[in-house]
């Protein structure tokens, strides 16, 4: 049984169809990259999976259960954790408290005590190399640090499926490599399926994902093994644009 299954999911905002009949299956423990330019519907897709809003059409299944209309906090309990493209820390709280909130409310059992949650938080803060900063007010972290903290917070929820929304944007290449190593380790050790969404840092996808889904104008343009997908001419086209006919004509006349 698939961990997550989307069936012809559509979401419209007024006249704009942000996600258009997208179907997708993700297996337990799989690493998937979702790529696509700005406005291709990636974040909307994440919001539908995590339950921020329901789709207008289509259905969402998690481990065989229909969760299309399930409120977000209940999805969390089933095992869906996520980060945000623009980090959303609980700014007034410390780093440790932020992660503890994930552990306290986001886990499957749902009855984690405060002191247990703080211990779990410490464990994930050590894992993400954030332990030293645990008493810092989270609102004062740099954007990249906030992204790391969100990953720790999502991991503390012990998800089966982790949705990373542009978690590596803004990171220097060295850190991206470190991050990929870290995510691989987490995926192996905790058996988490990870969906990483990126706009243009292909490095982040290439080193990590087994499979890539390419989104374009709300549609699923392509779904293929990573290497194959990233070299597909259609993918190159949506990022770099297709030469116009005039340009091609000019080119041919010159030669």
């Amino acid at each position, binding site marked *: 049984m698939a961990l997550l299954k989307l069936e012809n999911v559509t979401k419209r905002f007024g006249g704009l169809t942000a996600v258009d009949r997208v179907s997708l299956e993700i297996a337990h423990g799989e690493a998937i990259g979702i790529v696509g330019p700005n406005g291709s519907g990636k974040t909307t897709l994440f919001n539908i999976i995590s339950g921020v809003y329901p789709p207008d059409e289509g259905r969402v299944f998690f481990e065989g259960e229909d969760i299309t209309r399930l409120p977000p*906090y209940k999805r969390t309990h089933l095992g869906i954790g996520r980060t945000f493209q623009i980090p959303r*820390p*609980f*700014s007034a*709280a410390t780093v440790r408290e932020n992660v503890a*909130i994930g552990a306290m*409310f986001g*886990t499957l059992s749902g009855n984690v005590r*405060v002191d247990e*949650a703080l211990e779990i938080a410490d464990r994930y803060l050590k894992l993400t190399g954030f332990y030293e900063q645990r008493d810092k007010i989270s609102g004062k972290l740099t954007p990249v640090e906030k992204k790391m903290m969100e990953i720790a917070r999502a991991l503390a929820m012990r998800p089966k499926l982790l949705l990373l929304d542009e978690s590596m944007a803004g990171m220097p290449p060295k850190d991206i490599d470190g991050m990929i190593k870290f995510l691989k380790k987490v995926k192996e050790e905790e058996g988490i399926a990870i969906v990483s969404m990126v706009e243009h840092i292909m490095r982040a996808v290439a080193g990590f994902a087994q499979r890539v889904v390419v989104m374009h104008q709300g549609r699923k343009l392509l779904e293929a093994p990573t290497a194959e997908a990233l070299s597909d001419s259609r993918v190159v086209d949506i990022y770099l644009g297709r030469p116009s006919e005039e340009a091609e004509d000019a080119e041919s006349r010159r030669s």
Partner: protein
Amino acid sequence: MRRFYPLIPVLLLYLVLYVIGSEVRGMWQPMALLAFYAALGQAFNIFLGMTGYVDFGYVAFLALGSYGMALSVSSLYESPWLGEGIILIGLLLGLAMAAVLSLAVGAIALRLRGAYFAIATIGVNEGFRYLIEGVKLWGGSEGIIISRPLREAFGAAGANQLSTFWADTLIYLIAALAALITLLYMRSKISYALTALREDEDAAKVMGVHTTKYKIIAFITSAALGGLIGAAGWTLKLTYVFPADVFNITYTVEAIVIVLLGGAGTLLGPLSGGLIYAALKYWLSVTFPGLQLLILAPIILLIIVAFPQGLIGVLKAKVKGTPLEKVIV
């Protein structure tokens, strides 16, 4: 026990007020006024301070509490075997009525966010007042006067003792109870959930926080304590309840000012805010009668602009890393 240390300064402050009130001649009423406003702030803070939601209809909970007491005394005074139980039933009825109203209001209004919630609640007290006056519920616009029933049940001296001593003493106890509940919430999952939803409600939901549940917990707690304050501090003390008096939005505004002044979401904040506000108001109304609000408003404005975190918010930042950190929360 260590977790209850922060209660020490709170209870000490109330004790000081109480002792000054009972030992210094003529100070009982002024001290009771301070305690009333501190209790009001402490009760309202559990909702406003901890969730960040502004309830403009808060006074309606105090009002229903005061009706609870009035209804209990006026309908049970002929049962002498109940004794002081009449007062206890009045308190519980006031608490229950406020809690039921908060559940009804919360179930609808707490689905709304921020300013929309505030607007939705603004009509609650006015609406209730017109309902009571319009359908002549609970005595309609004439209200309920309990001075005679109180005298018949407890005798002249007993009734006097109840309204001049016990009503105020109960306010001290309710304030202490509100402080205890605040601290218990602050040390439990509730405070983490409320912090999360106050900072970012959508993110909180995606982190697994059942936001509606925790908002309602804070709302009902705050309302129930408000009901107790209305029952003891208004009806029992004044021995009457008039809809035009108890549904007055001024008290909601005062409660908001007190919480912001002292520091929203803190334990000591609403207490210190209540003391400062009530003391200023009392002093100004004695020194500049009639002009007190005109002078008070700019002072409060200045304080809130200078200390947006509130007094205790600033103090908390100052004592961070010192041993005082454990006590000032």
